[in-house]
């Protein structure tokens, strides 16, 4: 069964590159343009991993992770942040929200794929 990843980023070009990278690794990708869209999707379907930006309109990535952790289907789903944010303070926020890991942009495609494989 194909592994499904929910990729969340308000930048269309980032979503394209993340999706292409994940697809090259054999994953199926569902895209969302912000936390609200991602949460709406998540309330109807589970995925195997969530990969989300932090700074997004309507709902940021850290709030998204907090909300997703409240859903029974997402309680143990790996959730990686993919963001330009690199401060320890922000990382701690992400960790406390329930994130599994933190990747600082720009991402290296091979490193992204190996990190995804590690947490799945």
């Amino acid at each position: 069964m194909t592994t499904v990843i929910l990729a969340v980023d308000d930048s269309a070009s980032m979503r394209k590159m993340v999706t292409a990278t994940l697809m090259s690794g054999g994953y199926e990708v569902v895209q969302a343009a912000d936390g609200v869209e991602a949460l709406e999707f998540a309330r109807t379907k589970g995925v195997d991993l969530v990969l989300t930006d932090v700074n997004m309109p309507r709902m940021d990535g850290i709030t998204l992770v907090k909300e997703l952790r409240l859903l029974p289907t997402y309680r143990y789903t790996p959730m990686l942040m993919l963001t330009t944010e690199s401060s320890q303070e922000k990382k701690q926020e992400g960790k406390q929200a329930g994130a599994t890991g933190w990747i600082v942009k720009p991402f290296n495609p091979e490193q992204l794929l190996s990190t995804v494989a590690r947490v799945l």
Partner: protein
Amino acid sequence: MNPPEKKTEPLHAPEVVSYLDLMAAQLEGALHESEPPVTAISGVIGELAAQIPTLEQQIPGIAPRLRAAIVALQFYDRLSQRLTHVRDGVMLLAGALQNPGDGNAAWAGLHDRVRKQYSMEQERRIFELAAAGAAPEEFSKALATHSAESETDRVELF
């Protein structure tokens, strides 16, 4: 008889606000114009990258070049964030000039709002330099010496 003192006209806030509004509009325009072509290029590179295993068989050596292109194209994400923050900062300044409020408290509030919008450590670093009264040359130095985190620092699993 002494020559008349040269009077210096203070900058009029409404005119300054107009210029700030113009700058904000130009930044908005630049962001708006640049997004579609970058998204289109990202799409093409993305489509090729999704086929890396197949393409590598047909064009040996293409895989690392496509991966490098993916890393390179991500410049736009950082650039658009920075330009957005500059635009928002300009608009905040225009708003502060139009509604000056109580001097020190208003300035502290503006300082706070500008700082809060930053999403990159590099931006915060030069903002703090500016707030501390550093010369503009120091900003360029700080930007130039900022180095991307090493490959091992880019990923942290909790």
